[in-house]
Each structure stands twice: as structure tokens, then as C-alpha cells.
């Protein structure tokens, strides 16, 4: 069976500095996979390489067996991969509902149409309302997205990411900056919306990681030093060293946010 996402020998250089130094990663369909590692290890860069925000310098990225390395973000999205952002990335001047409707239009085949009336596209409205209910923002349906609280914007961010029905979901620090109770809600939401999908997430909060992930990969200085079940990772010597030894700042993830 082909993996949902497969990275082999992926490298990324910025000038002379190599940030990603040969990452190999294979994530089977339906798995919830967490990417952890100390600050500056290259987690977000890896996400950018997968999602098309930047192109890998060398190596291959495959989505369901098809090469996507170096493609444009919209092309990768149309192939069934969707991502969220660490810094909230929404359509600020549009209402919550319009944010979600924008996110479903392409997947429903409306493309660049200027001959359909939005009001008569019932499938788009229903899908947007369905996602709205899923992320629990019904009462804010017509509120301008820029006016939402931080946690609400984060929920909307996830809503936009999943609305198009992508099979592979990338979440970049979905709970960053949230309080404990907000984090619990976010975890429940992520669990809920990724049923039957492949999830890859970058996360600093270890309780979230160990609560959600089927498998974990640890990225240190642009290399994956270990991949395995949460239990195996917890007991891995190299991981302990990376987190508690040379790079103390990696431990900040335990509770800094």
C-alpha cells in the first residue's frame, strides 16, 4: 500500500546553510503523526516543503504516490493535502461563514466561476455550515473573522484547513498560545475532524502529542533522529539526550506555552 505521505532524502538549503538535512519519513494512510523537536529544528520548514510554501532543494515528496515536491500550494491542495498555520492565517475582513465557504468552493468544482450565484450554491452553503458546526462557531457565523478571539480564530483556522475535504491534513502548532481548557477543546476538535484522515502535526505541547499521535517523529537539526510509537519515543535514548542534554531549550515545549 502506498503511503499517504512519503519524504525521501529531502533537503533544504538557504544560501550555504542546510536547514533540512536529508529527511526520510513515511506516513501510512489514516495515521495521526506528530513531528516534534526543539526550536529551530526545522519542523515548520518541513511543513513548508510538504505543502508547497517553499520548494525542496533536493529529494522527493510524494502524496499518495504522486510527486509533489516543488509544486505550487494550490496544486498540492487540489491533490488532497491541506495545512494550517502556526500564525493564524484567515480572511480577516470576511465573515466566519464566508471564510469557510471560500475554503470549500474549489473542492466542489466551482473554480473561478462568475456565472454561478453564491446564494444558489446549496452544496457550498451546507458544507460550510457543517464545518461551522464542527468547529462550534455557529453563533459567530456572520461575525467578521478579524474580530474573533484568539482561540476562536485558531478553531476557524482548523475549519478552513479541513473544509475542502482533504485526505491529508497538516496542522502547524494548532494549540500554540492556548490556555489549558482551550487546548483540551482544540484536541477534541482535532480528534473529531480528522477521523478517517491522515494527520501530521507539529506540536510543542507534549500532552497533546502523546494524547493524539499514533506515531511520533523527532526532528533535531534538520534530521529525523527517531520515529516510533509514543511509548518507544518516550524511552528512546537519543531523544532524551536531544531534549534534556545538549539542547535544553527543547524542553521548553513541556509547559512554556
Amino acid at each position, binding site marked *: 500500500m502506498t503511503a499517504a505521505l512519503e519524504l525521501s532524502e529531502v533537503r533544504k538549503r538557504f544560501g550555504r546553510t542546510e536547514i533540512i538535512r536529508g529527511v526520510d519519513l513515511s506516513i501510512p494512510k489514516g495515521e495521526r503523526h506528530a513531528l516534534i523537536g526543539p526550536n529551530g529544528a526545522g519542523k515548520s520548514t518541513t511543513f513548508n516543503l510538504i505543502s508547497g510554501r517553499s520548494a525542496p532543494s533536493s529529494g522527493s515528496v510524494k502524496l499518495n504516490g504522486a510527486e509533489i515536491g516543488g509544486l505550487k500550494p*494550490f496544486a498540492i491542495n487540489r491533490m488532497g493535502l491541506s495545512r494550517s498555520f502556526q500564525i493564524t492565517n484567515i*480572511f480577516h475582513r470576511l465573515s466566519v461563514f*464566508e471564510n469557510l465557504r471560500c475554503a470549500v*468552493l*474549489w473542492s466542489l468544482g466551482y473554480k473561478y466561476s462568475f456565472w454561478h450565484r453564491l446564494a444558489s450554491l446549496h452544496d457550498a452553503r451546507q458544507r460550510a455550515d457543517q464545518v461551522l458546526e464542527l468547529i462550534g462557531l455557529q453563533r459567530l457565523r456572520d461575525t467578521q473573522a478579524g474580530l474573533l478571539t484568539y482561540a476562536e480564530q485558531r478553531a476557524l483556522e482548523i475549519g478552513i484547513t479541513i473544509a475542502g475535504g482533504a485526505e491529508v491534513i497538516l496542522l502547524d502548532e494548532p494549540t500554540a498560545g492556548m490556555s489549558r481548557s482551550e487546548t483540551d477543546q482544540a484536541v477534541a476538535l482535532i480528534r473529531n475532524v480528522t477521523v478517517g484522515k491522515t494527520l501530521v502535526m507539529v506540536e510543542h505541547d507534549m500532552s497533546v502529542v502523546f494524547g493524539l499521535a499514533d506515531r511520533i517523529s523527532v526532528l533535531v537539526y534538520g534530521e529525523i533522529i527517531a520515529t516510533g510509537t509514543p511509548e518507544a519515543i518516550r524511552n528512546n535514548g537519543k531523544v532524551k539526550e536531544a531534549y534534556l542534554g545538549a539542547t535544553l531549550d527543547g524542553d521548553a515545549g513541556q509547559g512554556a506555552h
Partner: protein
Amino acid sequence: MKTAMPHNYESAAAASRPRFPRRRLAHFTVWSLAALAMLLLPLCFPGGFAIALLSQMGIMIVFALSYNMLLGQSGMLSFGHAVYSGLGAFVAVHVLNRIGAGELWLPVSLLPLVGGLGGAFFGVLFGYVTTRKSGTTFAMITLGIGEMVYSSSLMFPGFFGGEGGISTDRVVGSAVLGITYGPARQVYYLIAVWCLLSMIAMYAWTQTPLGRIANAVRDNPERAEFVGYDTQRVRYLVMILSAFFAGISGGLSVVNFEIVSAENVGAVLSGGVLLATFIGGSGFFFGPVIGAVLYILFAVALSSLTHAWLLYLGLFFVLMVMFVPGGIASLMMKQAPLLAERKFGRMLPSYWAALGAGLVLLAALILTVELTYTLQINSDNGTLVKLAGLDFDAASLKSWVVAAALWLVGAWGWRAALVRVHRAWDEVQAEMAGGGA
């Protein structure tokens, strides 16, 4: 599209949401009122000058709305939009001359469509280059294209007619139903019909998938790419559609003025439409309509009264940008919730006070500007300035003292009025928040 129609009607009937018919009724009412106003205006103002003014307003409304498809709806700041209306106008004028020579057959009523197709053609051509980039780069490229087209107007006299431009005669072919487009009033009604149709079409566009995605691209181009949209393609398509409507306004101007010259593609007009759109308010669909009407009032009506009209327009623009960046439309929309809650009356006394003080300041400004103009530029014709039936001598100290006094009284009154406006506004807002909780 044809195949999708029955399906849409079916499901529209099945999901009988009460909101949609009411909204449709509201749209119908607004457009009917607009049509009625366009129908009646020339009857209320039957003079030749008024008809000319109204005709130019109609043309400018189409042009400004087409510009706002870029600026307000898609976040594209163009410094060269006159290229599309102007080139559309040149295409239309050549077609009209062919019709006049008997080489082509086309009713003059459809000439604006020719202009629109011409505009769209150049939108396809130039838009391909300009829309590859967004933001500042886009703005710079449009500026360059604008200059390029303007300078080529002198290099290709065959198409552009050199410095004199290309003149034409709109009274060609046989009269349809007695319409010859000889009288200015018939031209006005042609413009009114095209203006109304274009307004409805451009509004309808804002309610389509492309229209909404254009908003998304305006707000956050990067995110739009990550929900499957090629933002470059979105900008390109919007540019073509916008150029089409700009071309319609160009075609209308051909019928109205019967001449097209290099000025039609020039930077002054490109800047003018930006000014008009901004003053009216790019954040609301109807904003540019207000802006276009005001702009024509300045450019046509005021310019016949004073040489300093550009100065007034410039000052007005600067004041708007500084104090009402959302344009007049935003100022109006702020009052909407007050009207809905029947609290607008509470604001009125303070608004009247502000208006009074504002008028005094305006009088001071006009007196100062006109006195200065007379001294600096027009002094050969004497130093007498006639304003509101009063004579002011720019050479005498008395006039300047009056101006200074007006400034002082106006400024004092304005400050006092602003305090009152703010106090009343805060009170009303507090009441509305309290009532809602």
C-alpha cells in the same frame, strides 16, 4: 451553466429559506429606485448643462465601479486604469466611423459593448503582465503600462489620431424608433441604460464564487493559495472583467463626446478614477457611485466656476484620506445601526452644529483660495472677487481680515461641534450596547 439551472431551481424551492426572497426583494427595490431616479433626473433638471453633467456622471459611475472591482474587491491598486477605458474608446470610435462610412452595420446603442470587448481584449493582453505580481509591484507595473500606452498614442497616429485625437459622428444609420442620438437627452438615456445594466452586472459579480475568492485574495493571498486557488489566475480574471466594464464606460464616452484623444488613456484620468473611488469609499459596493458623482461635480461643475477646482479636489481628497479613510460610504454606513434603532435623531443637533461650522470653514477656505488666485494669476483682470453676491477686493486688507475672521470662527465652532458629536455618539453607543445586553 444551462444544465445547472434546473437543479438550482429545484433545490431553491426545496430549501425554502425565508431570507433569500426578502433579500431578492430588497435588491429589486434598490435597482428599481435607481432606474426611476435615472429616468426622472433629466426631467427635474432639463437644462443642457445638467444633462451633460448627468451623462458624464453615468459614464464615471461605470468607470469607478469597474476600478473598484480591482481596488476594493480584490485589493489591487492600479495607476493605469484609464488604459482600458481609453483603448476601449478608441476601438469603439473606429467601429463607429466604419459604421458611418457604411462599411459595417451595428446599432449605435450597442457601441458600448464594442468598447467593453475592446477593453477586455487589452485586459487579456496587458493584464497577463500586470497581474503576475501583486501589491506594490502590481501598482508600479500598471503605472508603467499606463505611461507606455500614453506615449504610444503619439507614435501610432493611425490608431490614436495623433495630438488631435479621433473625432466621430454618433448620428449614423437609420433611426430606430425615432432614436437618432442627435439630441443630448437621447444620449443620456443610452448612458443611463448601460450604466444601470453595468451596475447590476458588477454587483452580481460580487455575489459569485470568483467575486468572493477575489475578496479572499484581497484579505490573504497566501491562504487563498492553500485552499486551492491560483491567486495570479484570480487577479488576471478580475482584471479582464474589470477592463471589460472600463471599456463600456469608454464606449459610452465616445457616444457622448464624439471624440477620443490621448487624454482618454492618460495618467490624469487614471488618477481621477482612483480619487473618485477612494473618496466615495472602496469598502462598499455603492461607494464609487457616490465618488463618481462628486468627482464629476468637481471636475465639470466646479471647474466652470473656478480655476482652482483641482486645488479644491486635492484638498478634499487629502482631508478624506486623513480623517475618513473609509470614504463617504463608510461615514454613511456608520449611521445605519443608529437609523435602525431610531437613535439617529439624537445625533442630529450635533451634526447640524458640525455642518454649520464646516460651512463657515469652507467659506473661509474659498475666500482665501480665490483671493490668492486673483492676486497671483488673474490680477490682469483686476483684483475684484465676486463670491455669493458680495464683492471682495484682493488688494484691500478688509477682504483678508474677513477671511481670517471666518477661519477663526469656523475653527472654534468646528472644535466645539466635534466635542458635541463625540459626546452624543458615545451616549448613543452606550445606550445601544446597554439595550442589547
